[in-house]
């Protein structure tokens, strides 16, 4: 599809009329304008923050300031502690993410395989899905201890129930005639799963991956707030307790960047698979 579009627009570019040129220029100008304003907002915000902190309008001990954050960033890079915290959070997020996808897929397949199992289990999953998972975190510490297990389980609990429901719905919404087709070709349920449900739900699976990347990060941070001595979540909660607000602000900024990069990773995966499968 995408390749087609490119080809078409390429063709049109060969015979550019004046009005088309004006139209294209308009699009380009708009893009530039949007990007400029975006950048401007960021620059103004950072500048205002810095100025307010320097002139004493806000207390930079509590609100920190861009320059203090940069200084903090440099010193923490120098002693390597920042990388350790980032790595820990990233590592926990990835483990949770893959476990959520794995557990979600297996559970959704089991529910699809047995109508009665899905009927029995569905209300539980719906309730657990709507439960605010941060409420579970304190129990998890008591049960599992102050360690990485607690963090990963709390991250999984945030994302897994929604994943199961989304994938199960995707499976159930598959065109029954496509399933009938597999049966007319002599296939069984295993073939229905591997030839139709999984490839046919690739878009759904990728979408839940996108959502889960973010949710896993949320879960990991909740876990780190309560049961960690490393990681960005730990840095945020510890920093706020000892009034090292530079740590807190720096961690938040790094989390913003991390979340964006992780999201983009899935986008790239989507594009690669999309090119192959549709």
């Amino acid at each position, binding site marked *: 599809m995408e390749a087609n579009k490119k080809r078409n627009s390429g063709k049109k570019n060969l015979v550019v009329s004046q009005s088309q040129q004006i139209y294209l220029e308009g699009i380009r100008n708009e893009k530039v304008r949007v990007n400029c304003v975006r950048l401007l907002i960021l620059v103004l915000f950072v500048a205002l923050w810095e100025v307010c902190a320097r002139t004493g309008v806000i207390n930079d001990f509590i609100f920190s300031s861009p320059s203090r954050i940069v200084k903090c960033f440099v010193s923490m890079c120098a002693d390597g502690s920042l990388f350790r915290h980032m790595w820990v959070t990233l590592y926990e997020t990835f483990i949770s993410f893959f476990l959520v996808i794995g557990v979600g897929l297996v559970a959704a397949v089991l529910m699809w395989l047995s109508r009665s199992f899905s009927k029995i289990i569905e209300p539980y999953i719906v309730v657990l899905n709507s439960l605010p998972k941060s409420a579970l975190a304190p129990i998890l510490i008591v049960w599992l201890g102050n360690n990485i297990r607690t963090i990963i389980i709390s991250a999984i609990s945030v994302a897994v129930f929604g994943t199961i429901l989304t994938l199960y719905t995707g499976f159930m919404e598959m*065109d029954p*005639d*496509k399933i*009938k*087709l*597999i*049966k*007319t*070709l*002599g*296939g069984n349920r295993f*073939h229905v799963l591997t*030839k*139709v449900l999984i*490839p*046919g739900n*690739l878009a759904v699976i990728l979408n839940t991956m996108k959502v889960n990347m973010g949710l896993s990060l949320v879960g990991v941070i909740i876990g780190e707030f309560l049961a960690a001595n490393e990681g960005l979540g730990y840095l945020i909660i510890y920093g706020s307790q000892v009034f090292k607000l530079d740590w807190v602000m720096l961690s938040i900024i790094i989390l913003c960047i991390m979340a964006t990069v992780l999201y983009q990773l899935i986008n790239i995966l989507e594009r690669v698979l999309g090119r192959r*499968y*549709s």
Partner: protein
Amino acid sequence: MAILTIKDLDFSYHSPQGETKALTDINLTVNEGEFISIVGPSGCGKSTLLSIIAGLTPVTGGFFVNNATIGYMLQRDHLFEWRTIYDNVILGLEIKKILTQENIDRVNRLLERYGLEAFKNKRPSELSGGMRQRAALIRTLALNPDILLLDEPFSALDYQTRLRVSDDIGEIIKEEKKTALLVTHDLSEAIAMGDRIVVLSERPGTIKEIIDIHFGGLSPLERRNAPEFQEYFHELWRCFS
């Protein structure tokens, strides 16, 4: 020679609201190489009958003897967009794990013979409706079935395409010497393609009449222009009123 015999077949649907009799007292013998059209008012159980013959729906009464392997063609082509045409066509071979050189050669021969050779590596969305339906037929033929069950396979096509594709598919089935059962609600199509027409009654569906059709080797499109066509149409129409 009889390839399929249906005897005293009954079929009921069950729902919490009660039992619905869909088919009753169906008796039919299908001979090898025959093309049978099945027509009837909507909801008379035409598609259910095919589903039963294909073994997808268990019978609830009566029985049928089936000495043949069965291929099924659905209303829409259901080619998978995530596979190329070639990968779609070999789907059945892949499922049955019989991707032998012999079978692959047959698929390639079919693709070549019916003008899809150049589209082997294309996605279904890049093909016209007629070509897609041809690809769907080749997917069914890849398993070399003795009987083809066609469940309104042209109903999703526009009228012109439909005429051309039904001619096309009719010829392919004749050439490959297959037995076929076509379910349709289009009376002209039934006459243009069938050697015999089975008329089903309203629900519960039972065989109301069987009309023999003789055109002496004309193709579906040629049949539509033959003088007998109108007579058959009137005869068939009378069965409905």
